[in-house]
């Protein structure tokens, strides 16, 4: 049925309540967008809806929800700004993470970091049973207490959280090229690398053996021809997780990435064993 002004008037109540069938809803929307005549009935009846919500007695949610909302917004803001202002980040970015966040998450209190963990758990809760929720809360409390006592762990947790937020955000961008990093030494090491059109590279690695002394993992970029280019280096603790972010790396259509474990960070060519490698998709 063709949607006319009279017909819109007739179905306005169902439309503002979202109670029309999908096809009729679309027809009303199309009419409202194209009709030169005003339809005050839509605003008038739509204005009733907040009253319906106001008929409910306000209910106070758990106090942690506020922290969770704000922490999630801060993480979102951090990720957006890191993408919007890549030139503001020096490489290697592992060292840059706390600097970048100065004034925000970089100076976050223990409570803020706890809330970040809680926020993540809150978002995962929808797929948890109540028993796993209890276990998760216990884990968060334990983690929080441990982190508050050991500031070094707190700092690492902070970096990891920021790194996760940035990396996840970059992966959602349509023009990001990715490389799946797989072990070449038979180990369980793996990872993912993201390459932006600007030449920014983020590498996230898992299952690495912890570095000791001067030992480092060096990330190398290989091209079609020529010797590999050093991207940067990173150290790894007992978590086995490594993160590296570098800006303005010269790129080409064909790029491979590999990671070697080196006795120290002074190498200019790969000398140690290759641990993982991958190729950026086009």
């Amino acid at each position: 049925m063709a949607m006319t002004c009279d017909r819109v008037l007739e179905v306005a109540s169902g439309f503002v309540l979202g109670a029309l069938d999908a096809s009729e809803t679309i027809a009303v929307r199309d009419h409202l967008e194209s009709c030169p005549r005003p339809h005050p009935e839509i605003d008038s009846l739509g204005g009733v809806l907040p009253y319906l919500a106001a008929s409910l007695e306000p209910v106070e949610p758990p106090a942690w929800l506020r922290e969770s909302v704000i922490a999630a917004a801060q993480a979102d803001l951090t990720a957006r700004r890191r993408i919007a202002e890549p030139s503001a980040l020096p490489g290697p970015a592992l060292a840059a993470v706390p600097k970048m966040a100065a004034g925000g998450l970089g100076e976050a209190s223990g409570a803020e970091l706890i809330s970040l963990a809680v926020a993540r758990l809150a978002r995962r809760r929808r797929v948890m049973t109540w028993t796993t929720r209890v276990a998760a809360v216990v884990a968060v409390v334990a983690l929080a207490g441990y982190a508050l006592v050991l500031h070094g762990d707190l700092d690492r947790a902070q970096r990891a959280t920021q790194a996760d937020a940035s990396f996840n955000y970059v992966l959602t961008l349509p023009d990001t090229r990715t490389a799946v990093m797989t072990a070449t030494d038979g180990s369980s090491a793996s990872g993912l690398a993201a390459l932006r059109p600007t030449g920014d590279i983020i590498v996230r690695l898992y299952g690495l053996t912890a570095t000791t002394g001067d030992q480092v993992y060096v990330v190398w970029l290989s091209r079609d021809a020529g010797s590999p280019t050093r991207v940067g280096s990173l150290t790894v603790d007992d978590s086995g997780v490594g993160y590296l972010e570098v800006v303005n790396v010269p790129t080409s259509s064909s790029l491979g990435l590999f990671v070697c474990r080196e006795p120290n960070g002074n190498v200019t060519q790969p000398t140690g064993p290759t641990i993982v490698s991958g190729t950026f998709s086009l």
Partner: protein
Amino acid sequence: MAASPPLVAPDGLSEGQSEAELMRQVAAGEIGGLENLYDRYHAMAYALALRITTETGLAEDVVQDSFLGLWRNAGRYVETKGSVRGWLLAIVRHRAIDAVRRQRAGVALGEETDETLPAALTLPDVWPEVAGRLDAEQVRGALTVLPPAQREVIELAYFDGLTQREIADRTRAPLGTVKSRMRLGLAALREQLDSHHDGRSAVVTPSSSGKKGLA
């Protein structure tokens, strides 16, 4: 390295700041604006989410997702199209209904998109006046004057997210009857709520609201 702008807005937000000003802060990425809006509306948002989902965990997820939706889309807010509170509650309602449907289907709660963010459908800037003059009890009083059958179809649509056809199936009433009850009930509710305003200028009058053809 260029200095990053501060992530947290300085203190100084007052209760008197307008919603529009707070939304401008949120759109500019100032956390303080979001904190202020959360402090103002979290209890109402949570009550609505809880009423629709009937589950605290899901309601908490809905409130968090809704405030994040507001945070990420603040730039799309058009002041002249409705109040922030109305927009937020529309987001909460939409997300809550979506969450219930997804839960029934075993699908995880999705991220908000342009399609899932409702447009503002509220009276321009009426809310501050409403909040000052009507409490929840008064609004409930306005609802109770409706015939039960009209109130039922409105509540099934608003709080349960049912379509007119689904309401007809649920109540075993003819579809035409459901449509009629919804139309008459919403118009009568509009009338009731308007009467509480004593003809304040911001209230849409019958002549301007187009209600002529709705009653």
